[in-house]
């Protein structure tokens, strides 16, 4: 079973594998432009409880992603 970005816990890293087909094209393009592209290393910086959006670092920027979108980013193992 594949893992998703949402499953990352604070301090954990991963590499993005692909996007779930349910993510619409417009938003997939935006995610890629922000740095969330297949092959990119992502680290979870803050993971609040109670289902609040998590903070992910990609490149030299930090973004907050809610569960609904982070679950559509499929990851592949430990990142750099």
């Amino acid at each position, binding site marked *: 079973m594949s893992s998703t970005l949402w499953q990352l816990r604070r301090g954990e890293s991963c590499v993005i594998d692909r996007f779930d087909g349910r993510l619409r094209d417009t938003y997939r393009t935006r995610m890629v432009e922000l740095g969330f592209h297949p092959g990119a290393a992502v680290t979870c910086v803050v993971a609040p409880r109670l289902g609040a959006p998590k903070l992910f670092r990609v*490149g030299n*920027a930090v973004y907050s992603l809610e569960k609904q979108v982070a679950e559509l980013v499929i990851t592949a193992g430990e990142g750099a």
Partner: protein
Amino acid sequence: MTRVLVVGSPNSGKSLLFNRLTGLRQKVANFPGITVDTHSGHSRQHPEMELVDFPGVYSLHAVSGEETVAVETFSRALGEGDVSAVLCVVDATRLEKGLVFALQVADAARRAGKRVVIAANMMDTLERHGLLLDDAGLAGALGLPVIPISARTGSGLALLERALLAGPEPAAPKDSLLARDETAYRNEAERLSRTYGPRGDLLIMSTSRADRFFLHSLTGGISFLLIMYFLFQSIFTWAAPLMDAVETSLAWLASLLLPWIGNDIARDFLRDAIFGGVGAFLVFVPQIFVLTLVVGLLEDSGYLARAAVICHRPLRIFGLTGKSFVPMLSGVACAIPGIYAARTVESPRRRWLTYLAIPLMPCSARLPVYALLITAFIPAYTMLGGWVGLQGLAMFGIYLFGICSGLLVTALVSRALGDRGEDAPFVLEMPPYRMPSWEPLLRGAWDRSRHFVYKAGPVIFWVSVAVWFLGYFPNLGADLGHSWLGSLGRLIEPLFAPLGLDWKYGVAILASFIAREVFVGTLGTLFGIEGAEDDVVSLAERVQASGLPLGSGFALLVFFAIAAQCVSTLAVLRRESGSWRLPVQMFIGYGLLAYTAAFATYRLVEWLVA
């Protein structure tokens, strides 16, 4: 004359640079997408150069309403003959992110035959951390001038302006990255950033530590509540000395001028309509200044983006998104910028729900009304060395009531509409925490207060004059009850009698449909005429002395918290929503709700008191 289009990603420091170059007082904020309109101004050093500032966007592939407006406007402007160059601002500390957009802009500008100059901003931060940017190498790779600058310190700006005025002619169109797949710009930006950009974990580590505190389930929630409480408490505690100063100055001016006026009618007019009506409104302007200053402080420090993250999950319950938080908080200052800021909400459904909530946010025009009623009914009791005051708590309470009403309405409407699964996902950039610059903050608060006085002042003046005229004649102020205004008031009295309000308050409420703050000026004039023999007494004391029941005071608070009285807000909403349908529905719906809730409050409070 030459025109330069200024573009950049959100948080690239573009607005601060624009302000530096033009000296204009444009709002500078550290929240993604706070600039939602174009601004223009002439360079201070080179007046022949006009700069046009565009809203910050991440990409020329728009995903939100605001981005679509910005991108379409930019594309149209590129085609105009008098546009000579495009200035693209990138944050050198996060080069990769800025370059994705810069590459898209360079492609678009080359196709339009315009020059592009890249400003690599925030060099002061890089230098402080001992990091370097190979600007010459980057310029060579891009085929464009890259000028290292710091909008904060002003370094490199002279060179930048020279490059904008006399840069090289645009290169012939190269191979556009557009033709390739969606990752082409990203891959190129990554490559360039790796080769020429600074190396190091700049700002990220300290930001992460702060975020772990401010976004923690417990400490984040507590700090959010404390910061919001501090915001509302400051309206009273910080503004009080300024308000006293305005009141004392007005009283001094009145005592100086009035004895010089021999004509009785002219003297009564000056005392009651000008010092009583307009003066009563001016006393509350310092509160608007303090409110704008504190909201600006939160924006510029980077905290507002965190507040949006904290609020996202709770706001989802009400059908909104974390991105609704900033438009709603802007609505606390004024509903109009709040409605403009709602363009940043990508989902049309959630944007519409945000529109519904904004007019219920406690805007600054309500502030004078709340402050008057709270001062009249709530004792000025303080505890904990003055840090906690009963009046501040009451203000917090009525603000909370407005916010909760807004959320309740959106929750009900959202449930009624149903979720069609079309909502845009919540993805928000976290800007680095920054120490705000005081100068733009103070200037912003000053501008907002001045704008408020200029906008509301003439309306309040003419309403005060009309109310004074109708109340003073035909019996020259001898008996307000038998004046023309008294007759008019008694005609509408049955409408307000169920709220325990006499005709004077009825007249003031009717006048407040022009603008809420007119309520205070109108009451000031009315009580001024009635108490013409008294010394100048503050309006709150006159309201106390008028014997207004406690229940009516609370009913008035509730009425003003809900009713959508502001004509300007409804007009802007019409423009943004594309039709009169929503503003008309809002005016009628919120009007009926306000009256019903005020009636229930009056009955409840009077029953409790009895």
